[in-house]
């Protein structure tokens, strides 16, 4: 079977500035990959490029997803094909309820797959199950999408969306940052509950503490737009004690 995601020598820039400088990464169904690395090394850029953010131009290499060329597809087509990005900074959509937003997204994806749309009443039943994943009551669904949500609530909302949309490839960009212990446990449990043999996770994180809950099969270190080291879960522990300097030769950048 073809890998879920296969990235070869990927280069990407913003304007004239090259940010990704030759990334190679293969992710198979059933795997969890952690991506670590100093601030500003290109972790978010990698996730955004996979999802198709228009600010970035792919200048070389390829991204294949289930043997399709992802770079040819619009962001919504990628989403409809099962690519999901949990944003580092989820966006607020004032005036649009979480329920309406999630149902629209769910139905758009179903439509694209030739399935029938789900009406609001059936969707409530479906939601009830999914809300359990993030230990939330139904009230959250009547609030406007991420509007006035705390940092932790926004991250939990990303996981809720992931639970509803059931992606094949989930990219989690620092979903653990800024979470207290409880929220971290909820987010991690959510991911573990949704893990299946036919889907895969790419988890961008700074902290070992998340990886205590979501155990990665592979850990990659990204520095200055390249993967400078890959290993098993023990690499994360090593990074925790030693920092990144021994790999990058430079102090951690201050930009993020």
């Amino acid at each position, binding site marked *: 079977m073809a890998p879920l995601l296969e990235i070869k020598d990927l280069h990407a820039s913003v304007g004239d500035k090259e940010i990704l400088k030759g990334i190679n990464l293969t992710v198979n169904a059933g795997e969890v990959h952690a991506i670590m690395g100093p601030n500003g090394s290109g972790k978010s850029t990698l996730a955004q490029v996979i*999802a*198709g*953010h*228009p*600010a970035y131009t792919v200048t070389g290499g390829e991204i294949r997803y289930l043997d399709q060329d992802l770079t040819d597809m*619009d*962001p*919504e087509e*990628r*989403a*409809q094909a099962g690519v*999901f*990005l949990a*944003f580092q900074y*989820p*966006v607020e*959509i*004032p*005036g*649009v309820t979480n329920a309406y*937003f999630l149902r*629209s*997204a*769910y139905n*758009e*994806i179903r439509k*694209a797959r030739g399935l029938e749309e789900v009406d609001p009443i059936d969707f409530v039943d479906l939601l009830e199950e999914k809300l359990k994943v993030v230990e939330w009551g139904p009230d959250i669904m009547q609030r*406007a*999408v991420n509007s006035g949500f705390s940092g932790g609530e926004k991250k939990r909302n990303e996981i809720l*969306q992931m639970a509803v*949309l059931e992606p094949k490839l989930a990219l989690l960009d620092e979903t653990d940052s800024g979470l207290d212990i409880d929220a971290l446990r909820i987010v991690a449990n959510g991911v573990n509950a949704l893990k299946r043999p036919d889907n895969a996770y790419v988890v961008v994180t700074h902290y070992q503490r998340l990886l205590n809950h979501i155990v990665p099969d592979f850990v990659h270190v990204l520095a200055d737009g390249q993967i400078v080291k890959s290993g098993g879960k023990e690499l994360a522990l090593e990074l925790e004690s030693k920092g990144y300097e021994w790999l990058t030769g430079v102090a951690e950048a201050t930009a993020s």
Partner: protein
Amino acid sequence: MSESVETLVNREYKWGFVTDIEADTLPPGLNEDVIRAISAKKQEPAFLLEWRLKAYRGWLKMTEPHWPNVQYPSIDYQKIVYYSAPRTQKPLGSLDEVDPKIRETYDKLGIPLTEQKILSGVAVDAVFDSVSVGTTYKKHLAEMGIIFCSFSEAVREHPELVQKYLGTVVPGSDNFFAALNSAVFSDGSFVYVPKGVRCPMDLSTYFRINAQNTGQFERTLIIADEGASVSYLEGCTAPRRDENQLHAAVVELVALEGATIKYSTVQNWYAGDEDGKGGIYNFVTKRGKCAGPRAKISWTQVETGSAITWKYPSVILQGDDSVGEFYSVAVVNGRQQADTGTKMVHLGRNTRSTIVSKGISAGAGQNSYRGLVKVMPRADGARNYTQCDSMLIGNRCGAHTFPYIDVQNRTAAVEHEASTSKIGEDQIFYLKQRGLNTENAISMIVNGFCKEVFRELPMEFAVEAQKLLGISLEGSVG
């Protein structure tokens, strides 16, 4: 912006067709004889002709105002046709007598003129060019003492009511365009709801400009007597033509003690093409008076059309404890310009007003909010809350806010909040990442932005407004 966004094309204005009907039209130009001719055609009583002439003489001394933040070539008032009516042999007795071509036009517009559609519960008055072509549901309303008819008919059948209230809110001398309207207005709608009666259905008027070079000058007068209540809906479209057409309407609302009037507009006049050619100049005076205690007047407007929109639906809060509301969505795209807002004039004690304005600018559109909150010395305990939000789509458009606050009473509380946001690439990307295409993403963001206004609209109108918004913003992000 991404390519998929850029390749979205502007959908054609689908209401832009012209109906070919025989019309009874006065030659272009304006003088006292034209006014006499209009009045004679409509068999008006002497008081009305006098009233028109007085307004006309006042208008001659006025100059066209240029303070709004809009730009257009000067209007030649002698080139405008002031009266154009579909030719009919005799006064219309029933709906079946309406010219089938006009019926067809309204069918195309989706207006429920036919009896079966009347069952859907909206009473409709339709104004085609200058005259009203049919008022539905009249009998049922008449049993409750509610008068809902064309203005001309009200002049014939209820001259005492017209004489008593006409010009009491917007005098013939009020402003340049109101004076012009007072001199030449041809038709419009009239509503009277008697004491204590709650009008059981929404009353609705559709305005349609068809003839070429015709100005549309309707006059609407709505009176809710003590304790009465009524909800009134107004919708408008026009054919697409290369030359600009002037629409200078006047709407007067009178709410007596304890009465409520809710007035909703979805305005979708032709906006001109992408180069700014053609389109309606919508210069309208709308004002309501809460004449007695505890009266309430609420304006809700969704303005998506017109080349230029210039209007300030206002409320004079004369009665103690009276309430004025203004909920507005104004959208400009292409080369549209809008200068719109409201005036809330607090005269009575404990009067309250709420203003919620949502301006959306796209393309090269220019959108200005202009609002006045005035609290007079006697208005103890007056309160106003104003929220004024602007949304920008793209880099070529503009949003401007001109709030004027004039408080002459120390016990008054006036609160103003304003915000400007930009539909960002990140917001759109977020929704696309969840599977929505660009159009749906923009529509969702914009509808969310307008939510506080849409929820004030009657259900059917709200759905229509949401669709219109989607259409008028199509292709706007690029």
